[in-house]
């Protein structure tokens, strides 16, 4: 069934008209029926009353046989619709009759049937009444009335049409009222509909429906507004969520970019890191192979960076790395790659090489760039670079090989005294392999008794007597022979084995000193070198104290040697550690004094007992004016601070005399004795006491 798509206003009007129409029709019908019934009843009552009255009046004329009088009575009836009036005598014979001339003459019925019917018979056309004419139970006859219903029906019909007109007018009024009423209902609903449509089109959920009153439409509008509030809040929440999601996505993308950057770049220098560097080398190799060209891998390392970092701190070290990277960047072409591999190691990838001279010029340029000191944070730092290089394809055709060979060349440069560059030679790989094997062998050396302590005497300048010894570690490799501490200590430090080795040194030195003390050398002093890693151990004082107590060695017999760089890394921490050691009675000395960057102000704060002048000053103390001046300054400062001064590396009489004349308290060097195994030093202690040092000195 097809559905009507009427506007709500038309529907309301139709409903109102339908209801009104049905009600009016029903009312009209009922009214008409009631009217008809009432009119008929009224007519019946009226006719009956007339009949009774006429019968009453006809009674006397009938008794006194006066038909004329009866006709007169009948003719004076007040029933306008009377068609016929007839009086029957007691024999039911017509006695007198009267008929309206305009009424159609009807046949006179058998009145007995009417009497049998109760005195009244009504059909669609007429009303027939028979009334007995009696007096005191004496029957005289009957009065018969025939009343037409035409007039009644006409009147009812007229009233019907009148009421129909009124109903039509009322219907029209209903239509007008319907139009007005439906506007009061449909207009707010239509406004709501338009608002809903507009919101749907514009997605503007801030709009609200206006309403008056407190009826259902107002309630609907209120509910609609509440719904819009909820949607608006949800929209805002969604917008916020989308913003947050967008922001989160942005942050994520940024984080991913940062991660990608961190994965490929060094955060300090913003240079490509090892991973990206390897990728760049691979690309360079690929392009060089395709274009039949050469490429070079340049490995470089800042000389003495570790000392600078340890002595001046990480902040200075980081600044140095950044400044170094800028200088390196200035030395290469735009298309070349400069990467930081880690620590102070950098790598340069040079492409489109036609002549080796190109690489040489770059390396020389770098050497020259580092000839000038760096200035930052009030410090002036001088550093050089050691450079190793190899070329594709003759020194390697893959990334790993090229990097390893360049690294080997750089180590060669370092071995050659640093601040220089080296081309890769095939034999250089042997050195790299040696370093690798040293790391592996060192792990077993301690347990296999390959590590030894040698002791170098420390001589009192005035008495030329041995007043102490410095314990120096030695490694007797089963196949490689003696290995210098200069070579294996850095290996121990980088591999983390230095802690155990350091403890072993303390323990071994204590064992040996205890033996010497048993032999009567109870004044002998043992100098032990501490590594930077050991010095950072919080329980170092307790560890050393425990060892010494185990061997009944007084703490003042132990002199702990610390390098300048160890102190300068964390001055306050170093002071605390030194004070703890000092409070236990240990002697404290600064090793290699003069090579670092110690401040005199700090020097005053350290609870020191001695300074050891570095051998580099002693070497040329008698020949180089600058070294002479530095040594004199150190001696003077030590005196002012009431510190004992020990000169290392004293190898000639001139050096010894100069030092003695300028107030150096103690000396140590080959002039008196090289580092010796314990047994030999014991012999020296037994045989040379107390004066033979002087003769040896004289003899040399």
């Amino acid at each position, binding site marked *: 069934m097809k559905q009507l798509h009427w506007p709500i206003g038309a529907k309301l009007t139709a409903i109102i008209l339908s209801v009104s129409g049905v009600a009016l029709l029903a009312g009209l019908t009922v009214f008409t029926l009631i009217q008809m019934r009432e009119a008929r009843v009224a007519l019946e009552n009226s006719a009956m009353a007339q009949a009774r009255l006429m019968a*009453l*009046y006809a*009674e*006397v*004329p009938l*008794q*006194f*046989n*006066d*038909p*004329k*009088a009866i*006709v*007169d009575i009948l*003719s004076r009836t007040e029933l306008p619709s009377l068609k016929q009036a007839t009086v029957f*005598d*007691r024999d039911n*014979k*017509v*006695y*007198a*009759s*009267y008929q309206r*001339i305009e009424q159609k003459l009807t046949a006179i019925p058998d009145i007995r049937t009417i009497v049998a019917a109760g005195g009244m018979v009504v059909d669609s056309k007429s009303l027939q009444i028979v009334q007995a004419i009696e*007096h*005191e139970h*004496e029957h005289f006859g009957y009065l018969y009335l025939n009343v037409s219903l035409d007039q009644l029906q006409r009147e009812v019909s007229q009233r019907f049409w009148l009421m129909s007109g009124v109903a039509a007018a009322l219907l029209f009024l209903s239509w007008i009222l319907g139009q007005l009423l439906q506007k009061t209902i449909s207009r707010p609903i239509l406004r709501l509909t338009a608002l809903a449509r507009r919101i749907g089109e514009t997605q503007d959920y801030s709009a609200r429906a206006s309403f008056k009153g407190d009826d259902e439409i107002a309630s609907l509008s209120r509910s609609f507004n509440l719904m819009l509030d909820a949607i608006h809040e949800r929209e805002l929440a969604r917008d916020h969520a989308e913003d947050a999601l967008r922001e989160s996505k942005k942050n994520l993308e940024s984080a991913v970019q940062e991660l990608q950057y961190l994965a490929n770049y060094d955060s300090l220098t913003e240079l490509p890191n090892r991973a990206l560097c390897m990728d760049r080398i691979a690309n360079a190799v690929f392009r060089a192979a395709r274009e039949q060209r050469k490429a070079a891998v340049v490995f470089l390392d800042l000389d003495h960076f570790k000392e600078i970092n340890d002595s001046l701190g990480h902040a200075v070290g980081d600044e140095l790395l950044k400044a170094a990277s800028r200088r390196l960047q200035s030395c290469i072409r735009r298309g070349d790659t400069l990467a930081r591999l880690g620590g102070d190691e950098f790598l340069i990838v040079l492409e489109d090489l036609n002549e080796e001279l190109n690489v040489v010029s770059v390396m020389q340029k770098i050497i020259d760039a580092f000839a000038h000191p760096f200035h930052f944070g009030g410090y002036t730092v001088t550093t050089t670079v050691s450079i190793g290089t190899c070329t594709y394809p003759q020194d390697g055709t893959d990334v790993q090989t090229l990097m390893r060979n360049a690294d080997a060349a750089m180590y060669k440069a370092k071995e050659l005294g640093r601040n220089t560059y080296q081309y890769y030679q095939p034999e250089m790989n042997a050195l790299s392999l040696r370093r690798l094997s040293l790391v592996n062998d060192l792990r077993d050396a301690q347990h296999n008794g390959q590590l030894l302590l040698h002791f170098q005497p420390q001589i009192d300048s005035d008495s030329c007597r041995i007043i102490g010894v410095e314990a120096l570690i030695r490694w007797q490799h089963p196949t490689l022979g003696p290995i210098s501490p200069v070579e294996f200590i850095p290996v121990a430090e980088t591999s983390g084995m230095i802690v155990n080795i350091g403890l072993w040194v303390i323990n071994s030195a204590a064992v040996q000193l205890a033996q010497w003390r048993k032999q009567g050398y109870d004044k002998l002093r043992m100098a032990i070198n501490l590594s930077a890693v050991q010095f950072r151990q919080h329980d170092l004082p307790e560890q050393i104290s425990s060892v010494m107590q185990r061997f009944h060695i007084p703490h003042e017999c132990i002199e702990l040697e610390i390098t300048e760089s160890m102190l300068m890394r964390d001055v306050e921490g170093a002071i605390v550690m030194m004070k703890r050691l000092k409070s236990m009675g240990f002697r404290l000395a600064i090793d290699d004094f003069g090579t670092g960057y110690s401040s005199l102000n700090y020097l005053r704060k350290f609870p020191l007992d001695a300074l050891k002048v570095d051998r580099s000053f002693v070497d040329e103390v008698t020949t180089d004016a600058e070294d002479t001046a530095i040594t004199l300054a150190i001696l003077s400062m030590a005196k002012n601070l009431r510190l004992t001064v020990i000169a290392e590396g004293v190898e000639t009489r001139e050096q010894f005399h100069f030092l003695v004349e300028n107030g150096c308290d103690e000396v140590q060097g080959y002039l008196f004795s090289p580092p010796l195994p314990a047994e030999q030093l014991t012999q020296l202690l037994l045989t040379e006491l107390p004066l033979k040092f002087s003769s040896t000195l004289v003899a040399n």
Partner: protein
Amino acid sequence: MVSACIYSRRVWRWPLLLLLCFTLFSPSLNASEAPTDPVIMRAVWLERFTRYIDWPGGSRVADANTPFTLCVWGDDNFAKTVHDLYQQQTIKDKTVLVSQRTDIAQLQDCDLLYLSSVKTADLRALLDKVRGQPTLLVSAQAGNAELGVHINMYEEQGYQRFEINIDDVKSSGLVIRSRLLQVARIIHHAGPS
């Protein structure tokens, strides 16, 4: 316009009907039946007049223990007819005593006095005698009503009619109902009463 149509019996049938009345119905004449003979009709009408006339309280008619005295002056035949007619009938629910009178001095107990064949001079004397007493005076002689008879029957166009002297009825203390007046000719007393 109204037209009247009267159904009347044919004149030629009267002798036959009269004969029938005498032969068949006379012995059992009933006042409630429709009379056809003028004499009988007059006798019958006497009772019918009483239906619409009320006697004053305190009169004999008002007394339930006394019969209704119907007096007939003169005319023995009419007296007999009345006597026969009302032997079994009642007037005003009372038994009827029909009495023929000839003495003017003996009229005090008459409730209804039918004057038949009375000379005018006698009539005047008689009327004077009963004047003021509650006796209904009925006659069937032209001019009697004007003289003082209360109800006087007469014939008109073949129909029996009656006239009522309303003045004398009033003076006698009787009350005639309007319905009776409706079909009667109203007569007023002629000259001083």
